[in-house]
């Protein structure tokens, strides 16, 4: 514990301050953890290494966690990795259980964060060696596995898959980037679009456009009436939070945290794939997952523990390979170079003190996040009581800021908001599904690079089956996921039929439903 002697009060204050600012950034739709770290990076030069890291790690943990707030309360993912939090969080908020949902999220977050910190501390070099066993082929299969959630996520499998493929298609617009090893040619667009769309649509503006702006359009269409959700927050006695919600969730929590850590540590895959994958696995493996997507706590637990577990995971390749695991850790590299410290396979052995200090900051940030959030939730949850005529213009305004700032000032990103806002509106009107589409969009471009590069290297499709035992395990998981989705599809169709036949005898309906919910 020698290293503790170099720490002073300012270190602890900076962790706390960083976490708080991070939460605020994450909680504003459109502002992300990456942005929080990026804007505060210049400050670290004056702070010195230890204090600088304290601030940045606080921002990182806070930023990732803060994303849950708009995801649950407004149905807008605050950061791309909280996308799956909207699936169950918003339905709960609509039932007046926003506060409960947030509390579940906070607890899942802190557990995910701490598990991943422990994994980072104990196994970083070991896991780094394991992670380099994942070549393009295995990474493609991971993406495919995450994509397989689309099949089970949607009401109609056919429509869901179709929406997902549209999402993939949209993500391919733009150039086949040379920074991914592509040839830099643009495709899927007309020449006149090139000045705007050369790099394609950016993820964040797409996300907040399709969730945020389209929600506002749908509301405007209905005349922006006052609804009762605001008042319901107070009365829903059943919506009160108790720790018993977590009963039976231990497996889910652990599994999701490990998935988050693991996906976080694969360079290039990181980020949003983590929570999607954790969500998929919970959906597939849980005893009863029929309520997932309609407001089930287990979905929140999977999503939030996985996305906070990203933090520790993404630091593994950074500190033991010198390679960032996600966008935020890529910015973090700047902090090290600013201080003249190299990150690479020898970072931990050569910078013992810094390593312990980082771990302290990371663990501390998780606790601070927990305390800040858990006690602030009661007040945060009141956001839904702000009248819509005040709230909506502000959402649009903050979406604009986020979209404009995400790539350091590109006006086209703001227009992307509108394009995808309108698109999101139309999609929902004609009965396509938003969630599969957005998952397709998030994972599409990675799927392309890994798929095409695998084939370029090996020249045969069979490589996806013969590359390694890891590939076979991944195929087994993909197969299980798809089979499960099909089974679920049949079950729900049977249930629909049953309910339809019971329509004629209404007295039986409630009994039928109860029967459903117990049998799932």
């Amino acid at each position, binding site marked *: 514990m020698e290293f503790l002697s170099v720490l002073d009060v300012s270190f602890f204050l900076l962790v706390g301050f960083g976490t708080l600012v991070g939460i605020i950034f994450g909680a504003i739709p459109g502002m992300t953890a990456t942005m929080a770290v990026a804007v505060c990076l210049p400050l670290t030069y004056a702070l010195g290494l230890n204090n600088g890291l304290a601030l940045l790690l606080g921002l990182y943990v806070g930023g990732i966690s803060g994303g849950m707030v708009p995801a649950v309360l407004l149905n807008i993912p605050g950061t791309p990795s909280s996308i799956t939090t909207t699936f169950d969080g918003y339905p709960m908020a609509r039932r007046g259980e926003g506060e409960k949902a947030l509390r579940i999220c906070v607890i899942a977050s802190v557990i995910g964060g701490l598990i991943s910190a422990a994994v980072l501390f104990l196994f970083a070099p070991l896991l780094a060696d394991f992670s380099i066993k994942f070549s393009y082929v295995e990474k493609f299969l991971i993406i495919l596995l995450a994509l397989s959630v689309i099949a089970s996520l949607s009401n109609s499998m056919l429509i869901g898959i179709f929406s997902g493929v549209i999402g993939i298609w949209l993500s391919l617009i733009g150039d086949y980037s040379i920074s991914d090893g592509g*040839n830099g040619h643009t495709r899927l667009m007309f020449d006149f679009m090139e000045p705007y769309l050369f790099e394609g649509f950016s993820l964040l503006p797409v996300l907040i456009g399709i969730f945020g702006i389209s929600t506002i359009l749908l509301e405007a269409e209905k005349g922006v009436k006052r609804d009762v959700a605001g008042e319901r927050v107070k009365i829903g006695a059943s919506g009160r939070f108790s720790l018993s919600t977590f009963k039976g969730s231990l497996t889910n929590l652990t599994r999701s945290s490990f998935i988050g850590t693991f996906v976080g540590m694969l360079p290039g895959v990181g980020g949003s794939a983590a929570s999607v994958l954790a969500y998929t696995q919970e959906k597939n493996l849980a005893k009863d997952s029929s309520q997932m997507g309609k407001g089930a706590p287990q979905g929140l637990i999977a999503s939030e523990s996985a996305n906070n577990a990203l933090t520790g995971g993404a630091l593994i390749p950074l500190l033991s390979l010198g390679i960032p695991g996600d966008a935020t850790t890529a910015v973090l590299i700047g902090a090290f170079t600013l201080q003249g410290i190299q990150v690479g396979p020898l970072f931990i052995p050569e910078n013992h003190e810094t390593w312990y200090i980082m771990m302290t900051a990371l663990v501390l940030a998780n606790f601070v996040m927990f305390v800040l959030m858990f006690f602030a939730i009661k007040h945060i949850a009141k956001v839904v009581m702000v009248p819509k005529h005040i709230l909506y213009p502000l959402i649009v305004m903050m979406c604009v*800021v986020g979209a404009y700032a995400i790539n350091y000032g590109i006006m086209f990103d703001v227009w992307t908001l509108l394009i995808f806002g309108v698109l999101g509106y139309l999609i929902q009107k004609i009965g396509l599904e938003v969630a599969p589409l957005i998952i397709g969009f998030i994972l599409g471009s990675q799927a392309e690079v890994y798929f095409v590069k695998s084939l370029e290297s090996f020249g045969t499709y069979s490589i996806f089956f013969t590359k390694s035992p890891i590939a076979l395990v991944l195929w087994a998981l993909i197969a299980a996921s798809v089979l499960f989705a099909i089974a679920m599809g049949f079950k729900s169709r049977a249930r629909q039929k049953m309910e339809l036949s019971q329509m004629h005898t209404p007295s039986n309906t409630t009994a039928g439903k109860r029967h459903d919910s117990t049998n799932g």
Partner: protein
Amino acid sequence: MASDLFDVSIDFETSHLFFPTLVHWILGGLLALILITKVAPFLAAVKRGERALPIVSESRDNLRFFATLALIPAYFALMAIVGDLFPYTGYGFLFVSMAFVLCMSLLYLHDWTKKALVIVVVNAVVAPSLAWFVLAKLFTITLP
């Protein structure tokens, strides 16, 4: 040999079209399936009068819907134009946001009471100013 069946060679110069082509085929196949199994029965139902077409034959608050659709592009466009007059100061965002927040609040406000109007106006001035000050000034984020 089975392995020959799976062999593939990708020309680097055209590799940007390899995956999109694949996606097009899948997309086309799925679309055909959907047209047959979902859209055709649906349209038949519309013809029989059992179902209504989306968007076209729905009731909506036309004023608020179309005003929103006009207000947002106007906001984005004006922000860029005004912002260009004061390069990289964020004034484009600041002033146009004030106007936008005011207009949209008024549009969505149902009962124009004096109290509500005061809140709307104060909010329209304070919120963009606060956002501008914190982001553009404290964090030196580039705004339009």
